[in-house]
């Protein structure tokens, strides 16, 4: 808690206090907005992968800023942007640390929730890799790489489970030699 300002304090010190108090109120706003956004919106989205895609879709591709009319109206555009960015980073981190099996389950659930057939979905996702735009800004390259790699393998596993379909990712990347792991 900041002490109250007095006229005797130097102008620079008062300015410093004003900036600090602005920062503090912004942090409180972001915390409140995050709680609200999590309970009202994110909790209604069942899977982490769906949440990640939803949050990435709230971001402007050109500026990297997030927009949410409801949050902006209730708090402010800056707080809404910061809140969505923080939630995006959090969801990405959670998904990054998921075991591969869980990512495969999430991917299968996500495919079921779309209106496309699994074959079309896998063909598109293996081809143009739209999941690459779902990573938050300033993510560590190694973390992003691990995430992309997990999704690529998960897609290959889901594809292998489909009845009689050629495996796009696996065949293009893997050599025909026997696996050293087996």
């Amino acid at each position, binding site marked *: 808690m900041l002490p109250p300002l007095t006229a005797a304090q130097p102008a620079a010190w008062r300015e410093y206090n004003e900036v600090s108090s602005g920062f503090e109120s912004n942090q409180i706003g972001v915390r409140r907005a995050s709680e609200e956004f999590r309970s009202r919106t994110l909790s209604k989205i069942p899977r982490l992968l769906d949440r990640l895609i939803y949050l990435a879709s709230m971001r402007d591709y050109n500026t990297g800023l997030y927009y949410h009319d409801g949050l902006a109206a209730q708090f402010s555009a800056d707080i809404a942007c910061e809140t969505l960015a923080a939630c995006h980073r959090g969801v990405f981190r959670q998904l990054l640390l998921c075991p591969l*099996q869980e990512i495969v389950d999430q991917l299968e659930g996500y495919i079921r929730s779309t209106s496309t057939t699994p074959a079309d979905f896998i063909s598109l996702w293996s081809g143009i890799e739209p999941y690459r735009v779902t990573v938050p800004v300033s993510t560590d390259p190694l973390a992003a790489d691990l995430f992309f*790699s997990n999704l690529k393998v998960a897609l290959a596993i889901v594809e*292998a489970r489909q009845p009689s379909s050629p495996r796009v990712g696996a065949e293009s*990347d893997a050599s025909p030699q026997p696996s050293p792991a087996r």
Partner: protein
Amino acid sequence: MIQLVLSILFGAGLLFSLYVLARKGAKAEGGAQALIDARQALSALKNDLLPQEVVARIFARDDLDYVLSAAPDDVVRLFMQQRKRIALSWVDRVRSQLIRLKRFHLGRSRSYAHLRPKEEIALTMDFATLLFACRVLRILVFLRGPYAAPQMIGATVGIVEKICGVSEKSLAFLDATNAASFDGRSAGSVAGV
């Protein structure tokens, strides 16, 4: 003649002083860059490369078990290729950040942290061991895959964390908490005045 020699000596002394002063200036500038480099390396190691959960996920054995049980051979090969690539990238990045930290410690840290000679020797040994371990780890992962040396990975992470601790001590004066306490002191002195 003696006067001439004295003048030459005096001139040479002046030139030498100028040279020393110029070098000091360059050091200050280079020192700032070394501090930034060390701080960035420390941050990359602590936040992105060393967290237990990240290392565990990159080298997770349960992922391999799952793929072996649930996917055909070509997908297993794809998985092994991908994890090997990421494991190699992890080793390379840890090594490059360590080299940045080593540069700071060998060149600048004694200006900022009062390390005892014994500590400095131990640190130098740790750096040498780690850089060698990274080389060996890279060869092992390259030849035998990401699951070749789990104990060595654990040991490497342990020593890197130790080095990060020492580096953090050397860079502690840059921390915001210190700045805050400095602010507090300034505020107090302002109030006192």
